[in-house]
């Protein structure tokens, strides 16, 4: 009985951490008065220690994290959970607080408020245990330029207090990160991509359980970016938890099991990339015409508002099925309007991002202006 209830709670917990947590934050309130999400079929018996048990099984969990620098509120109650062995992407525009969040998780910065556990340890109470379990690659290269690639790795091995016979491990990493040829050159001579690869190799030498990557591909050329992506995927395959921040939506889409969007110091949306895309009515057929007359005629035929800005285009909302497209083309055919160009736009994370992060002014996609509920 009790077990089933817990299993139920566990599932819900993964589904939406915020909803499940809120009622427990005030243990005084009676369970029957709780939010609708919590109307479990069986009256559940749960106490704080059981809740803590489920949160410590997460690789990373943050509750109510706040951080201000002077007057500036950077994080305003961030809540997130990362399952062990998963890839989690924290997405957000510049200045959203991504780096601050990573710095807090990586024990570099203390939060003003909130509770954070990484690899099962409270970061405020057991920072050293957390440091033992994590690897961090920051936004700016954290390599020693006056040391060679090999020496950089040896330095990390020494500081991780690994056994002295780590030469083998260093060789393996150099090979895996395509740094064998450059291994005995000073890192100051490395290209941006090589630096980033060395940086990652240094992060991995202690085989951390949880890895934080703050904008790991910012400033890299497409080939180096692919290499970093491959590395992240192989880490995830080996069961390492990866927490990455990025401003590239494609990156989150490609790599992450779950994506959270951080904006104005709060998580404004969280879910799989697929779930997030479904929240946005971004699907549309975009038609281009030779002149304004054609555009007007087409708009009339399809009973759409005539003008779409100054562009000679029309946008037809669609959920992506073929029938909508066929009907649109038939209507245009019947009206005898020539279409110069046709594009089908399915919602991508860009739409989600722009819709949710208050970046509408930058959007060139009128459809995204419809404000969805975050």
């Amino acid at each position, binding site marked *: 009985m009790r077990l089933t209830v817990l299993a139920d709670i566990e599932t819900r917990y993964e589904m939406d951490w915020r909803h499940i947590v809120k009622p427990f934050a005030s243990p005084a309130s009676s369970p029957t008065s709780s939010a609708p999400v919590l109307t479990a079929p069986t009256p559940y018996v749960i106490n704080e220690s059981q809740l803590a048990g489920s949160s410590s099984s997460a690789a990373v969990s943050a509750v109510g994290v706040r951080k201000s620098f002077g007057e500036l509120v950077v994080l305003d109650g961030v809540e997130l959970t990362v399952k062990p062995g998963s890839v989690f992407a924290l997405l957000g525009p510049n200045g959203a607080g991504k780096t601050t969040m990573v710095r807090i998780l990586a*024990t570099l910065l203390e939060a003003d408020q909130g509770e954070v556990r990484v690899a099962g340890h409270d970061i405020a109470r057991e920072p050293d245990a957390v*440091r*033992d379990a994590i690897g961090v690659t*920051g936004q*700016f290269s954290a390599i*020693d330029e006056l040391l060679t690639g090999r*020496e950089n790795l040896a330095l990390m091995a*020494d*500081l991780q*207090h690994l056994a002295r016979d780590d030469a083998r491990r260093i060789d393996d990493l150099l090979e895996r990160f395509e740094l064998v040829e450059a291994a005995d050159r000073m890192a100051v001579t490395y290209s941006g991509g090589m630096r980033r690869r060395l940086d990652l190799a240094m992060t991995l030498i202690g085989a951390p359980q949880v890895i934080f990557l703050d904008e790991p591909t910012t400033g890299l050329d497409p080939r180096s970016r692919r290499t970093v992506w491959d590395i992240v995927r192989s880490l995830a395959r080996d069961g390492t938890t990866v927490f990455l921040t990025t401003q590239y939506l494609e990156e989150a889409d490609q790599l992450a099991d779950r994506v959270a969007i951080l904006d104005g110091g709060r998580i404004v949306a969280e879910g799989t990339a697929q779930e997030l895309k479904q929240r946005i009515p971004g699907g549309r057929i975009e038609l281009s015409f030779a002149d304004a007359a054609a555009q007007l005629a087409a708009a009339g035929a399809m009973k759409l508002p005539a003008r779409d800005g100054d562009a000679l285009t029309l946008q037809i909302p669609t959920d992506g099925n073929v029938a909508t497209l066929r009907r649109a083309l038939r209507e245009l055919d019947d009206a005898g309007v020539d279409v110069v160009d046709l594009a089908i736009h399915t919602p991508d994370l860009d739409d989600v991002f722009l819709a949710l992060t208050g970046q509408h002014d930058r959007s060139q996609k009128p459809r995204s202006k419809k404000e969805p509920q975050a």
Partner: protein
Amino acid sequence: MTGTYALRDSMTMLRRNLRHLQRYPGLSLFPVLGPAVFLLLFVYVFGGTLGNGITTGGGRGAYINFLTPGMLLFTVAGVANTTAISVAKDMTEGIIARFKTMRIWRPAVLTGHVLGSLILTLISLAVVIAVALLIGYDSAAGPLRWVAALGLLVMLAIALIWLSVAFGLNAKSVETASNIPLFLTLLPFLGSGFVPVASMPAGLRWFAENQPFTPITDTVRRLLANQHVGGAGITAIVWCVAITAAAYLWARHLYNWREAR
């Protein structure tokens, strides 16, 4: 628990800093060769005249004996600049943030710098002493007094290096870091390092008599000249210990609270 890896991590950081000094000779060459050049300059350019002022008719020979202990303090102070620059430079690197996310003995980054600078100081002192002996420095002291003199110089070195570490941490940029410790190399001049304090005008003389370099210079000079050290010895040790303690606490505070840029 925090101290478990103190020695091991400090040694790792020391190895790192020694490699830096070796690969960036611009920083290590001046503190090693500079003081020897100054020694030759002072002895051969000014020495003939200054020596006569110290001992009537003493000339260059008298000045070598007077100057060498002061030059040793100048040598110790000269390393401060290198320390401050390398610490400030380190703080601009992302790798410091990486160190802070690792389970290492926190002050190891700083103790590594201190040990590296101390080794650099010892090399510089060896060079200056060798040159001084070659050009006729005549110490009346036995081995014990030499050990005592070197011990005091090492104490001063530790004090000034920690102070420079703090300067380096406190500096807004590598450029300012290189300016601040320059005044340390002036202090031997504004004390008993190059000429007797008694020859200075009243205000300057008061400063010279009361600043830390003077009792330390006097102690080293008397030890090496086989003279009675007197109260200066105690004053010298108190200064060294006090500067070390204050600078260490300041540096530790700065390191823990400063954001790596």
